[in-house]
């Protein structure tokens, strides 16, 4: 941490606030993953960590390295772009797989299939 001694105070306060907000929201999201009751409630909780948590820590890292090296350091945008694109894809795939498994087992607490999606051999 020796290179951060000449960091101005406003940058240190801003970076600290962003890092703490990001880590705190990630902790809240992971605690929700542990505490919520059903799987379809649980799948919403970790997106708090992958939206605001990732955004806060990445913006803090960009700001810190940009101020320390006195030039724009923007390669953290790669991670932000990648996480923003891939998180909805993975969670929708996982939710559809879970819905398929619940429907195949005949659980009563999942919504039934829409009538236009049911193959015509099953409803006479």
């Amino acid at each position: 941490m020796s290179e951060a001694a000449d960091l101005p105070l406003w940058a240190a306060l801003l970076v600290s606030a962003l890092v703490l907000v990001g880590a705190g929201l990630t902790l809240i999201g992971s605690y929700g993953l542990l505490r919520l009751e059903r799987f379809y409630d649980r799948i919403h909780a970790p997106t708090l960590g992958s939206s605001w948590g990732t955004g806060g820590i990445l913006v803090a890292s960009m700001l810190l390295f940009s101020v320390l090296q006195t030039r724009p350091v923007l390669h953290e945008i790669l991670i932000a772009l990648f996480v923003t694109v891939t998180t909805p894809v993975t969670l929708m795939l996982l939710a559809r797989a879970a819905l398929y498994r619940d429907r195949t087992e005949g659980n009563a607490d999942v919504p039934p299939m829409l009538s236009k999606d049911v193959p015509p051999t099953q409803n006479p």
Partner: protein
Amino acid sequence: MSATILNWSITIAQIMLGMAMLCTIFRLAGGPRAQDRVLGLDTLYVNAMLLLLTFGMRSGSTLYFEAALVISLLGFVATVALAKFLMRGEVIE
């Protein structure tokens, strides 16, 4: 002064991220069904990536950034493959 503020806040953030990883590990170990375990693994990947980014901010090197990028890539591929396995029973048909 500013180095002290930054040092303490990054330490607190790392403790918070470690507790978040502990929560996801509990869900990963004791999730009632397979999709809960896959969701816990995906969240564990994201939390490990954020923890590596805070390590990079503490040490001031860009080596941790590349490790975080690789972890997020591998997490995406692993979760897609596991969701496909839950859906169809095999990954590559």
